[in-house]
């Protein structure tokens, strides 16, 4: 059953929230040991919530648009009284004293939270191998990574543990794992979804978004979590999205530009498999009536370099708060400053230390202009190039990730190779624009490929039109 079929089936009495939940808990029981999608399965809380929803439905009340749908939450989103670790030892045992805004919205909509999913520590990575609690495996091939950093959420949906999941995307952390696990993943416009209660990594880039098995399910979830929140000063003062008409509208007459630089042009390393699927996606959109042509967005070539200065710079500041004073474990020492060094050294993993140091260096006296200042200017170039492209095109298109899912351990020794996984996705974060990954075709290894649909700020509606057409065409093929 798709996520969007669950609420009406419960309201009609065809099933119950309890029954739906037990089916998913059973799936978790069968395969979680092998996959490790979760840091925590919230069996008891989920059962209580399902009972509450069934009681409401039995009284003829509507528990909301997500009635009884099980959902998995990335473990960098605060849940009151429930451990929130960011897959880091430095938050081991911490129980947030408040809920993130989206957690309240999900509960108010009748969703049933089944657990907190694994991630690369503090969302820094592209394979979920940087988790302090061990890697997540790709449910489609357990010798491969699920992508990252929201690998646990992507794997939870791909393995049938939950039909919906929440992730966060700072440089591709929703879209790339969605591509590698063969599910739909959406990074909304910056500010579309409240970040209140999302543990900060790079505040000018972070955005929460949905994972789902289908484009329609992703739309349903995004509608619920979007909309203004006074608790997040960067929240856009707009009502929640209504994407219902986008799903059936088609792409007739839409102008779509394929970003040449990311599609076999200037940037190397995009596999032939992936480029083949992109060609098929272009054909599918053309057949559906869109006008598709190659176009240049030149500064996307520089996105990776700018991102790997800006994101660590913001992270080095955001992660200064983990000092053993107010929350998390402490390593005792004679003085406060020794205690802080000991706590941070024991609590952070290598990738987090690497990025904190990279960001600290890029912001330090003598290097600020050469790295951070320059990267901020490149960010302007990228925004200008996108603005030019959207004068001519309604949407842009590219691969989501350079390759299909790669083997565990493949890139852990070479951070730069891992960073290159984000090459197609990070420009949308730098610009603050929405983008989504839709499964389209498979590589010669039989693993799924994701196609990325990019839209201008606030235009999720047009993006979902193309997403729905790609999905329908992909299902027609298989």
């Amino acid at each position: 059953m798709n996520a969007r079929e669950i609420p009406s089936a419960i309201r009609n009495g065809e099933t119950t929230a309890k029954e739906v939940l037990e089916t998913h808990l059973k799936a978790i029981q069968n395969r979680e040991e092998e996959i490790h999608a979760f840091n925590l399965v919230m069996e008891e809380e989920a059962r209580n919530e399902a009972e509450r929803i069934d009681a409401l439905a039995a009284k003829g009340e509507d528990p909301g648009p997500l009635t009884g749908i099980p959902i998995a939450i990335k473990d960098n989103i605060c849940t009151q009284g429930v451990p929130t670790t960011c897959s880091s030892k430095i938050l081991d045992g911490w129980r947030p004293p408040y809920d993130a805004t989206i957690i309240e919205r999900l509960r108010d909509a009748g969703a049933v939270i089944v657990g907190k999913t694994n991630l690369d520590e503090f969302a820094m990575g592209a394979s979920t191998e940087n988790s302090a609690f061990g890697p997540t495996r790709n449910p489609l091939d357990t010798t491969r990574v699920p992508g990252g950093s929201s690998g646990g959420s992507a794997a939870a949906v791909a393995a049938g543990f939950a039909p919906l999941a929440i992730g966060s995307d700072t440089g591709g952390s929703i879209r790339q794992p969605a591509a590698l696990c063969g599910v739909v993943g959406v990074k909304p416009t910056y500010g579309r979804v409240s970040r209140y209660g999302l543990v900060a990594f790079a505040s000018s880039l972070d955005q929460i978004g949905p994972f789902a098995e289908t484009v329609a399910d992703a739309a349903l979830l995004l509608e619920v979590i979007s909309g203004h929140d006074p608790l997040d000063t960067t929240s856009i003062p707009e009502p929640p999205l209504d994407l219902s008409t986008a799903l059936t509208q088609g792409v007739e007459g839409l102008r779509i530009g394929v970003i040449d630089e990311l599609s076999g042009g200037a940037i190397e390393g995009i596999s032939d498999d992936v480029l083949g699927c992109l060609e098929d996606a272009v054909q599918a959109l053309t057949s559906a009536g869109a006008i598709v042509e190659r176009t240049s967005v030149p500064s996307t070539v520089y996105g990776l370099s700018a991102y790997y200065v800006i994101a660590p710079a913001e992270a080095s500041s955001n992660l200064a708060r983990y000092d053993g004073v107010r929350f998390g474990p402490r390593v005792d020492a004679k003085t406060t400053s020794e205690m802080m060094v000991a706590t941070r050294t024991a609590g952070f993993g290598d990738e987090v230390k690497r990025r904190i140091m990279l960001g600290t260096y890029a912001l330090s006296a003598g290097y600020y202009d050469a790295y951070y200042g320059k990267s901020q200017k490149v960010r302007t170039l990228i925004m200008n190039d996108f603005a030019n492209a959207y004068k001519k095109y309604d949407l842009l298109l590219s691969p989501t990730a350079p390759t299909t899912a790669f083997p565990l351990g493949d890139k852990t020794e070479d951070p730069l190779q891992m960073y290159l996984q984000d090459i197609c996705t990070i420009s949308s974060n730098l610009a603050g624009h929405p983008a989504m990954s839709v499964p389209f075709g498979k590589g010669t290894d039989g693993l799924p490929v994701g196609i990325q649909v990019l839209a201008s700020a606030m235009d999720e509606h047009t993006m979902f039109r193309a997403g729905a057409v790609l999905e329908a065409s992909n299902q027609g093929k298989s």
Partner: protein
Amino acid sequence: MNERISRDDVAHVARLACLSLTDDELDSFTSQLADILEHAADLDALELEEIEPTAHPLPLANVLRDDEPGAVADREAFLASAPQVENNQFKVPPALGDPS
């Protein structure tokens, strides 16, 4: 190893970031950070003199809400998260003077 960042630079940055590194870690981080900074050197080719920097994707302005009393943080809940507490305050080891 290239010259983008030296071992001494990395040691200095680690101190600024309140991290302690072993000798082996210093070696590996130096080489990895140098690789990353070397990749970022492709930006050197760009003509950026006339370009304004962007710090944020949105045109941010200060947001003020109405000054009305609402729910406040629960002191007990926040103190319960801390490793050490005394008299309703966070407690840390000595910050000044000789710790003996």
